[in-house]
C-alpha cells in the first residue's frame, strides 16, 4: 500500500510499531548493559531478561489491534493473507531447522529467533502474488 493510500487504522498501526521498535531497542541495550555490568539474579533477573520480549509482543498486539480497527475490508483481507503466509513460511523454516539441528552439527538458535524469522517471512509474504 502506497503511503498516500494508508488508512487511518494503518497509520495508527505504523505509529504503534515504531514506538514498540524504539522500546525494543532501548530494552535490549539496557538488558545487555545490565547483564554485562551488574547481572541481576533470582526472580528480578528472569524478569529483566524477558524485558526485551515485551515490545516484540507489543508489535504482535499492534497487528491484532490493526485487524480489529481496520474498516477497509480489502486491506484487512490483505494483511490477514500476509499473516497466514508469513506464519506458514516461518513455521516451515523453524521446523526444518529444528530437525536439522537435531541430527546434524549445525548452529543452535535461541527460541527468540522464531520472532525474527516470523517478521522476515511476514515481510516476504507481501511479495507473494495473488490478492493484490
Amino acid at each position, binding site marked *: *500500500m*502506497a503511503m498516500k*493510500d*494508508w*488508512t487511518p487504522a494503518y497509520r495508527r498501526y505504523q505509529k504503534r510499531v515504531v514506538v514498540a521498535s524504539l522500546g525494543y531497542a532501548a530494552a535490549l541495550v539496557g538488558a545487555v548493559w545490565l547483564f554485562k555490568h551488574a547481572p541481576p539474579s533470582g526472580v528480578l533477573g528472569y524478569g529483566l531478561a524477558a524485558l526485551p520480549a515485551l515490545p516484540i509482543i507489543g508489535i504482535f498486539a499492534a497487528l491484532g489491534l490493526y485487524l480489529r480497527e481496520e*474498516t*477497509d*475490508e*480489502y*486491506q484487512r*483481507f490483505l494483511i490477514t493473507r500476509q499473516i497466514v503466509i508469513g506464519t506458514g513460511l516461518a513455521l516451515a523454516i523453524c521446523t526444518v531447522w529444528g530437525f536439522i539441528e537435531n541430527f546434524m552439527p549445525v548452529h543452535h538458535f535461541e527460541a527468540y529467533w522464531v520472532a525474527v524469522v516470523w517478521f522476515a517471512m511476514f515481510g516476504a509474504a507481501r511479495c507473494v502474488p495473488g*490478492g*493484490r
Partner: protein
Amino acid sequence: MENRLRVLRAERQWSQADLAERLGVSRQSVNAVETGKYAPSLPLAFKIARIFDLPIEAIFSDDAA
C-alpha cells in the same frame, strides 16, 4: 465475479479515488474490486449499489450464472 464499476465511474466522471472517498475505503480497494481481484462482501456491495443508485445485480454479475 464481473462488474460494471469502471463504466459506472466513467459515466459520472469519478476517479477511483473519488469512489474510494465515497465508500470510505482506500483507492487500492476500489481498484481491487473493479479489476475483479477481490469480491466485495455483501455490505460493501450494497454500499456500492446505494452510491450508484442501482440494484446490486446491475453492477455485479456472477461468472457461474
